[in-house]
């Protein structure tokens, strides 16, 4: 399968600007400056069908086109490198090993939306990736790919690399903006949408690392080439982070639309220990509902996964085998979301804390009759009632686990112990 984002991922020198250029880097940018007006860049990205790789899958070109052309305010691009969805580790690799691809994408996007300041918001724990990005930015300045009059085009751009303080919520775009402005990382109510009024109340585009890194290849090879990969509605390739009970966990770049079973069995080498059967799959990061073993052939594209009742999300596939107690899985997830709730919206702040108490009580063997219905009702009071999707993210896997494995919860409450006997090696 053709590797686009990962073409030079194993080249140990690829993070250096010389090697990046040697391998064809910054040619897309040169082409953009030479052949395209900003609105033509937006049109081309629109027709490529590139969709945001952060989780929601929103068409990138369409997002850019919302930026008002005649606003007197400055425009900004924020590259969302706050990769923190459990199971996801694709952006990290891209930044560590091929940071210039992302930078080239940033410059192209800024040119398209007429932004002269871009920010890369990297999660605080990513010390090494942040260092690589900073080095790359420095090298790009030295070579004239950043700063004043880039490549003689008359276009100016400055990139500021900012590391976060370690909060999951800052991966949510409006919380990211609050954090970047120096405030608490709390999400903001929309409208106004960031494209109209984002960073410092100015028009702002926020794109994921992988989205931006996909841009150079589109301009190098053309829309037709790009659309020849993937499906009609989900074109292109995407990196999936495979983890859990498989033989070879890791990041794999595949064309969208490839069956899930190909990733797990062919790329991942199948189940970790063949004597334990597949129990469930989290297909798109910990906040997406489960897929069951009979859905293993679902194609990995936005539409097919949605049809199967889940979401493609950030592309983190977590494989769970039958050794796992699903009450324990639910507990791990709710503990995470409770810890990461920013505390702004009442339902998420109080609701996740209550769910955590109830699910932990069941896991400890102290569950009470009615607890399962209580969980479902509390989930209903959180779902769709909060500003940002964190509340929903906590509820969706919880509801899904109860839907598919209610009997395990009932067993826990009745027998005060796990139905599954084996120790789970996590």
């Amino acid at each position, binding site marked *: 399968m053709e590797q686009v984002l990962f073409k030079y991922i194993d080249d140990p020198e690829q993070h250096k600007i010389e090697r990046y250029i040697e391998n064809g880097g910054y040619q897309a940018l040169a082409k953009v400056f030479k052949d395209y007006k900003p609105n033509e860049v937006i049109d081309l990205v629109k027709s490529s069908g590139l969709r945001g790789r952060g989780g929601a899958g929103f068409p990138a070109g369409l997002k850019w086109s919302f930026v008002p052309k005649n606003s007197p305010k400055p425009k900004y691009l924020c590259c969302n490198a706050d990769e923190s969805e459990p199971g996801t580790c694709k952006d990290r690799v891209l930044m560590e090993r091929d940071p210039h691809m992302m930078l080239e994408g940033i410059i192209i996007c800024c040119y398209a939306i007429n932004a002269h300041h871009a920010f890369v918001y990297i999660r605080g724990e990513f010390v090494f990736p942040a260092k690589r990005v900073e080095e790359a930015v420095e090298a790009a300045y030295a070579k004239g790919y950043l700063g004043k009059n880039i490549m003689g085009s008359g276009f100016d751009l400055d990139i500021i690399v900012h590391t976060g303080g370690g*909060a999951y*919520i800052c991966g949510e775009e409006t919380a990211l903006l609050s954090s970047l402005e120096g405030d*608490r990382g709390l999400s*903001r*109510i929309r409208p106004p949408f960031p494209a109209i009024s984002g960073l410092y109340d100015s028009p702002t585009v926020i794109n994921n690392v992988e989205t931006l890194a996909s841009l150079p290849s589109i301009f190098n090879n053309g829309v037709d080439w790009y659309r020849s990969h993937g499906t009609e509605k989900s074109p292109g390739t995407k990196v999936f982070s495979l983890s859990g009970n498989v033989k070879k966990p890791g990041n794999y770049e595949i064309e969208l639309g490839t069956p899930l079973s190909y990733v797990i069995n062919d790329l991942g080498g199948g189940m970790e220990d063949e004597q334990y059967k597949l129990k469930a799959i989290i297909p798109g990061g910990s906040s997406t509902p489960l897929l069951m073993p009979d859905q293993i052939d679902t194609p990995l594209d936005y539409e097919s996964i949605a049809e199967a009742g889940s979401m493609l999300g950030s592309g983190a596939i977590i494989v769970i085998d039958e050794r796992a107690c699903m009450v324990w899985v639910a507990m791990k997830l709710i503990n995470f979301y*409770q*810890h*990461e*709730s*920013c*505390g*702004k*919206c*009442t*339902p998420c*702040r*109080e*609701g*996740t*804390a*209550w769910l955590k*108490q109830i699910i932990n009580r069941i896991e400890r063997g102290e569950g*009470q009759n009615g607890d399962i219905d*209580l969980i479902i009702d509390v989930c*209903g*009071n959180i779902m*769709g*009632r*909060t*500003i940002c999707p964190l509340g929903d993210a906590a509820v969706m896997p919880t509801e899904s686990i109860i839907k598919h494995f209610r009997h395990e919860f009932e067993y826990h409450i009745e027998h005060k112990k796990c139905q599954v006997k084996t120790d789970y090696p996590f």
Partner: protein
Amino acid sequence: MSGNGNEKEQITLTIDGQELTVDKGTNVLEAAAQIGIEIPYFCWHPKLDSVGACRMCLVDVEKIPKPAVSCATEVMPGMVVKTATDEIIKARRGVLEFILLNHPLDCPTCDKGGECDLQDNVFNFGIDKSRQTFTRKRVIDTQTKTTFDDKRIGPEVWRNMNRCVTCFKCTRFNKEIAGEWDLGAFQRGSSTVIDAPPGEQIDNLYSGNVVEICPVGALTNNDWRYKIRNWKATKADSICSHDADGQNITLWYDHRQLFRATSRPNDAIDDGWICNIARYGYQYINSPDRLTKPLIKKGGTQVEATWPEAIELIAKKFSKIKGDKGSVCIAGLLGGNQSNETAYLFNQLFRSVLHSNSVDYRLEYTGLTDGEHSEAYNCLYDAPFQISSLETADCVLIYGSNLIKDHPAVNLRLRKAYRKNDAKVYTANPVETKSGDISTDELIYNPDCGTAFLVALTHALIDGKLYKNIDEAKAAEIKSLLEPSNLNEAATRCGIEVDRINYLASDLAGAKNLFILGGDYLRASSDRSRQANALYNLANLLDIPDSNSAILASQANSKGARFLGLSPQLPAKLAKTLADKWGTTLPESTGCNTSEILKGALEEEIDAVFVMGANPGMRYPDGPFVDAALDKLDFLVVADLFETATSLKADVVLPLAGWSEADGSYVNLSGMYQKFSRALKPKAGIKAGTEILQLLMTAIDPQLKFDLSSLSQNTRDVIDSWAIPQRDKEKFFPVKQAHIVDHEAFPYRLLIGNDLHHYGYLTEHCPSLMKFASEPYVELSTQLAEKLGIDDGDLLRIESTSGKLVLKSKISEFFEGDVIFIPNNFSAVDVNCLVSKETGGWVKIEKLDDK
């Protein structure tokens, strides 16, 4: 709402089946309220940006898939809203259940009980069952190691985190409105804690508002905690009795005492936010130190007497002096926070009954120099500036005012203009001020060189041809009126770079709605007439409306006193109005102003002075002079609430009622007439100013007929008859160079004024305000402290030609260079001894070795 005349676009929508039309920009929550549909909320506030955090105000909006937060959903044409669908009812119950999960339900001992949004919302929209089966979470305070004890996070503010609903109203107010950073949210999620930053406390001037806007009892204040249930207190509408902004308050009281003051939102003045002085500044009324019996000096000591004795003695003495030596030997000084009604009668006592024109209310800042104020000064002082109009400004120059201290409400409006209207703010002062954080440029002029700065700015406008409505010849003529005669010289003199002045000039000239406001540094300056002339010229050069350039008044009713003619010279029209009202002729003799009265006393030309609600002994800015003058007097009568530096010298002392103990009215700095109601009756032995004056007048002239029922109307008539002078757009005044005092041996410039949390001489009787600042100090810059080897808290001897003092040092980030500041709100120290005509406020500093 103070509209700017533009008709707002109207939007028609449907809420719960009712069609209604509202202004564009209204949110659904407010629109529903207009037709009496209550949508519950916690985190929304009409004056704060909507954040949609509490999720209590969810409504169903057609075409929006999920329930929408009504506080952050703007009305749209044809919108169909339902506020009570099954889904919405369930969602609200869900939110209330979440909030109550860990709420302590300590309503019986919570001060917020009865005025608590949580109680009301649960009562109206909640359910009476709980599914909570866990032990309620308790926030443990690391200081006290306990859960229920409240934590004190500021001099007045207490926090009980267990009650908090995390609506962030307090931190949002603090940051958005007040621009302060002394309160924040820490931790996250369900562990979120509201607190002051480590090592700090919430002590900003507006900090009391966070208690008032807290929807529950999470934030309470000392003032009100555990004293009375709010439904047992009676309420009276009132006005702050300290500064001239006229912030509207509600007083809460029972038959014994006042309990608290809360805001009574008035968008024209305060937007519903009141400063701590308005909030806690009522407390002097409750003070146990109040005078409660008249005192008469017998054999050198003041002894208690009865009211009839005291009144008879005063009447006898005044009549005798009038008869023996003439009316000109009697004078009256009235405090700037006495009500219009008192001022009216005080004027009547002097002008009509005693036949003397020597009355004045300007005790604190006038007198050092040039007698009466100049024409330009009076014109700018009377300017019809409206506080609310400031929020429409796109450019503001604050000249000579530490705005947060002088005018707390105007200061918030300036911040609003900056925040909501992107206004460019310039400040020009002898020291840095709080407004610096929103200033495009903060200009600091050399002490006593404010005039030079204004002259430099005038030159810059003329040189850059940035003036309006005049020709070049006229411009050249105006230039010739100025000293120094060119920009460079003036800029050098005031110590500000030419570039910065040019930049300021071009911004002022380019503004569409420019305001130029002067304040206390100008008014306290011996050079104020020249500065007023310069401001007048600027206003004409830039062609700004009369309402946009003003010198702001100080004290709650100094403007009322001016309008009522409490100064020696009366405009002819006013003189006639008064004579008609009183049915007498007014004296023709020339009256004396405050400094002339004191000078007259010193030279034994004035024998008797009646001081009412004022304390020149402490506040008149020439200590040795005022002391000697008062000592020389034959007969001094003082009516006041407390024993003061002035009352100690008096032959008769009368216990005066405070403002809240009588009905009355004030005129604020905008010229706005505002009534206030009596809360408490004065305690036995204390009489209201109007009653004292009535007793006195009838004692002197038993024929005099009074109709007190028409007093309020008469007062109002006189105030309304005041003719506000219009600025003559063709007129330009000369601005000559100020004389600079030779002060070689005294290198440091002393500024005297109000402490941030005090105003005048009464606030030291307010325990809450004393928690913010309880003793006098000398504030100085870091550079000066380093130069003299001074640490925070060191004892310093401050010496001028006229006196010396020992004070604790306080090193301040707001000061630069050789300027120091001492507050004049504390009777413990006689600050005005340092100021006299000769020194003009220059001092030397010496560090005392032993602390």
